[in-house]
């Protein structure tokens, strides 16, 4: 769209673009200079305050935290995808007593903060005799809240498969369940892959709730570290950078998958047109 709205720039417009380029660059540089001066004025730029982050023991500690983050994310993602698939199939069921509860679960969990679920697991369950191990105190609320999101992604994917596919399956005598399993789900799975990857980025971000649970994932580890060495802003900036690198790679993967899929679709569209 943005390419339609203006003509090839003439001499005047080119001058204006040059001015905007210079101003934009200046604004970024000014912001950076301001930040550096603020750091320097408060003595946070001294070499000995950043030196520790160039040592291996420090990175071993942070990477252990990142490992715990990854473990929590992978386990919660696997569980919530399985649960989400069940919920999605439930919402699409033609039996009302299955459809109702599944829809109810998805709609309710969507409007409850994940932190509230964490508090329920932390404070409510132990009172009724269910004191989960530390890891599950983070993984269970994450699974419960992300299952609803995955359910909606799967449902959209299943609904996006043309109705003719289901009809054809039923017509050749497959049962409803086998039609779903053999014909609809494989096609849906391919279509929802990019959304699943980007929802997984969201889940990985949610694992930072380990900070509240005191589970030793990346953010909680960095809190412990910062309390120990007193380098608050340095630690949190380094940790933010780690999150950024990991999540950006995942987001990039999602975009690549999406682009590849779009290319594949036009290709198959063309070949079927030729046939």
């Amino acid at each position, binding site marked *: 769209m943005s390419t339609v709205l203006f003509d090839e720039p003439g001499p005047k417009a080119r001058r204006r673009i040059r001015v905007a380029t210079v101003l934009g660059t200046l604004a970024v540089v000014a912001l950076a200079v301001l930040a550096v001066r603020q750091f320097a*004025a408060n003595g946070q730029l001294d070499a000995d305050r950043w030196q520790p982050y160039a040592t291996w023991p420090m990175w071993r500690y942070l990477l252990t935290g990142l490992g715990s983050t990854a473990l929590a994310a992978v386990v919660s993602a696997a569980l919530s995808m399985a649960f989400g698939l069940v919920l999605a199939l439930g919402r699409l069921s033609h039996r009302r007593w299955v459809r109702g509860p599944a829809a109810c679960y998805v709609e309710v969990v969507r*409007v409850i*903060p994940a*932190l509230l679920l964490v508090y329920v697991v932390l*404070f409510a369950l132990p009172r009724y005799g269910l004191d989960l191990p530390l890891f599950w105190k983070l993984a269970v609320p994450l699974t419960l809240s992300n299952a609803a999101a995955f359910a909606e992604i799967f449902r959209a994917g299943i609904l996006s498969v043309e109705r003719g596919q289901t009809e054809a399956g039923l017509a050749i005598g497959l049962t409803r369940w086998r039609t779903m399993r053999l014909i609809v789900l494989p096609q849906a799975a391919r279509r929802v892959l990019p959304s699943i990857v980007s929802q997984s980025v969201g889940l990985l971000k949610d694992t*930072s*709730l380990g900070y*509240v649970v005191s589970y030793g994932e990346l*953010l909680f580890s960095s809190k412990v570290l910062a309390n120990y060495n007193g380098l608050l*802003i340095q630690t949190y900036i380094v940790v933010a950078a780690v999150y950024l690198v990991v999540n950006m790679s995942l987001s990039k993967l999602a975009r690549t998958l999406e682009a590849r899929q779009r290319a594949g679709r036009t290709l198959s569209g063309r070949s079927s047109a030729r046939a």
Partner: protein
Amino acid sequence: MSVLLDHLPELWQGLVVTLQLTAASFLGAAVLGVVVTALRVSPVRVLRAIGTAYVETFQNLPLLVLLVLAFFGLPEIGVKAEPLTTAIVVISVYEAAYVGEALRSGVNSVSKGQGEAARAIGLTFTQSLRHVILPQALRTVVQPLGNIAIALIMNTALAGAVSIVELTTAAKNVNLVEAQPIPIFVGAGIAYALLAALVGLVTGRLERRLVILR
């Protein structure tokens, strides 16, 4: 049930803080989001790059990390503000990335012919944006913005993890005194559900009002 009534003042105070956080952050995110979108569709490459970098950065950082950085890191370099103000600024900056992305996909959803037609009848860039593109883009954007608003309400709970007593933390505190988790947490959950339902109602109304029948 009586637990809720006994502690109504604390819980009410928490709900008020949640509402303040939500309203102020959504306003901030909307304003910043429009700026980010403007940067991302501008003809100047540097400005587009700035907009993209902004969205990429804040969509890929956990909000809790940003909150912790702002509450415990920034005071170290002499940047300090009221806790509530800090939380509002951080949530605004974070959600602006999502608003910007929603607005941009709204602009992209308007068919290309509309833009070409506007240019063909001699409207300038600003005129075609104002009279042709944006009115159509806004319609498709109402629903995504509503979803962002609901996600924002849920995200305000994270401010509780950095010392702000909003609804979730108020409920937790009341539970620490009373040890009756079920009515307290269910009550808080219902309050959140009602807020989200309200947002859904408003966006539904707006969408119906903005719809054009062809």
